[in-house]
């Protein structure tokens, strides 16, 4: 987790600097009234706080982390064992999700919800270890269709599909 804190601190500092000096100034307007705060002030305060805190976190991790021994890095209170640190494995998982998400979004938009999500479900079930082909086929085909029909019948909403 120490390495995660250092890298997170560095990346947050860089991102905060970019936001403070480019993103916010380029995407906000000056105030209408002299008495009012500038629209850029609160976002700048938030990002400024993030910058300072990220620096503190990185410094704490660099200079304080070496003294932490095994077993003293206690379980994260919100996520427990889930907070394993942003290792290379986690970044690869994130890349996989990014690719899958982009693919799903594109397929839903240009093909349709049912075929895109049927493909997604089948792929996901195979990914996590399901092997019974009948279960995979039945669940993958039936679930998107049932949800699509439920959305239409109960909420009068048609999910995207090229044939609608």
């Amino acid at each position, binding site marked *: *987790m120490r390495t*995660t804190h250092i890298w*997170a601190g560095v990346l947050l500092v860089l991102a905060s600097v970019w*936001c403070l000096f480019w993103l*916010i100034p380029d*995407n*906000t*307007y000056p*105030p209408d*009234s002299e*008495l*009012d705060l500038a*629209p850029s002030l*609160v*976002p700048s305060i*938030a990002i400024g*706080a*993030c910058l300072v*805190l*990220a620096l503190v976190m990185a410094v704490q991790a660099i200079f*304080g982390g070496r*003294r932490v021994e095994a077993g*003293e890095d206690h379980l994260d*209170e*919100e*996520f427990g064992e*889930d*907070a*394993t*640190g942003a*290792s290379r494995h*986690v970044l690869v*998982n*994130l890349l996989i*999700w*990014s690719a899958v*998400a*982009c693919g799903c*979004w594109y397929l*839903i*938009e240009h093909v349709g*919800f049912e075929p895109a*999500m049927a493909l*997604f*479900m089948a792929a*996901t079930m195979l*990914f*996590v*270890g*399901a092997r019974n082909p009948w*279960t995979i086929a039945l*669940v993958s085909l039936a*679930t*998107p269709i049932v*949800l699509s029909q439920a*959305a239409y019948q109960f*909420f009068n*909403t048609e*999910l*995207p599909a090229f044939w609608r």
Partner: protein
Amino acid sequence: MDILNSMIGGFEAAFTLVNLAYICVGIVLGIIFGVLPGLGSVTALAMLIPITFYFTPLAAIAFLVGINKGGTSGGAIPAILINAPGTPEAAATALDGYPLAKQGRPEKAMKTALYSSVFGDTFSDIVLILLAAPFAAIALTFGPNELTTIILFSFTMIAALAGRSLVKGLIAAALGLFLSTWGLDPVDSTERMTFGTIYLFDGIPLLPFAIGTLALSSVLSQLYDMRRDRGKPPPPPLPPASQFRAENRIAPREFWGNWKTLIRSACIGTGVGILPGLGVTLAAFLGYGAARRASPRGDNFGKGELEGIQATEAANSAVVGSNLIPTIALGIPGNVAAALLIGAFMIHGVVPGPLMMVNHAELIYSIFASMLMANLAHLIIGRVGIRIWVQFVKIPKHIVLPTVVLLCVVGVYIPTNSMFDVGMLFLFAGVGYLMRKAGFSIVCLVIGFLLGENFEIYLRQTVLINKADLTVLLTNPISLAFLLLTLFFIWHFGIRVPLRQKRERAAAREADASSD
């Protein structure tokens, strides 16, 4: 007398077949989500808020409150049956529930958990009804000066209490605040980080943000864990059906004999719920610890002691009602579930805060009445369906989790028919996953996002009213008090506690070294 009259009016409005139906469906869904490990009431709330767009405000909130109540108690079922808590707070229930199930009395444990949960819920709902109006009356005297410092204090308290690291909690809250500023400026209506797209004129949409970071990121994490763990031995099987018939009854004397534990735990849960930032899990473990210390059978805790189950379930369910006190009185969510309920209120045009009791008094008391009705419905549904909920534990995760992803997509698409929202959902699912792994608090991120807009509005009102003179925050006694509390929390949780922990670790290392 006013409260009584208002409650009678509330019952009159809430006691309809339609409202009862929504409450019952909400409870059933909440229990199902609570039973399925890895989901829980927060996921259920995040996913099902979109469908309440088409409900009336009363039906929507009653439905969501039912989900919250059912989800909090539903997590006890897998905790008792297979030692796999459906929700984090049910981990405390497993301490005595699972041993009792192994002794051949799983249904007795589940009934005890259910009855205790309903007791705790009802207790805190009564406290909510008695305290919400007086709290709101006090809060009505607050102006922008006070509210600015109260929200600033809330950011700090929630960040301090949401996790071990104050710094990471504050970073998450600051990011949430930054993301809340995207969209049209609330005072000038000028564009701010909209990047020229009309989809961001209203800011980052709340539902994809909440569902992505809270629900979908958790599902992603579990899917990857399943991938990593495939090939490992399966979890232990459920107890055989015959054990559901043997020694199932719990006599009233056996249950009410521990009335002191029930009331103590309900008080602990209610107290935890009133303070923003303290979680349901904390209430469960505090209640358990207090019961074990006070009980003459304290040595039996952890071996299937009924009192242990009563303590945890009464405490964790008592948080649900009292959590709405700061939510209704100040518009400040006590935890993530309350934050999502705030989102639901706002979707239905009800702005949480002290004016809520003035402008929407009838609705509020109808919601209170619905909450009391929900407790009775919870008792009946939970009791009648005990053997049905057990079946949901058997559904394989490789079917449940992908289905939840689809439900999330449908849920964000229905209200706006916009693929932009689906894109935001996927984006924030990735952000939430990364935050989970890095140990950054998603609770702080969501609450920072929800409170951010109000914080900016109150701050700018303060500046405009006082002609840019912010020293008024130091001369106003209430504002000054909250500013000092903020500084105290930063000093205590950011400096004092870490230093103390560092000294304790050093002392422990020296003790180990000298014993070697």
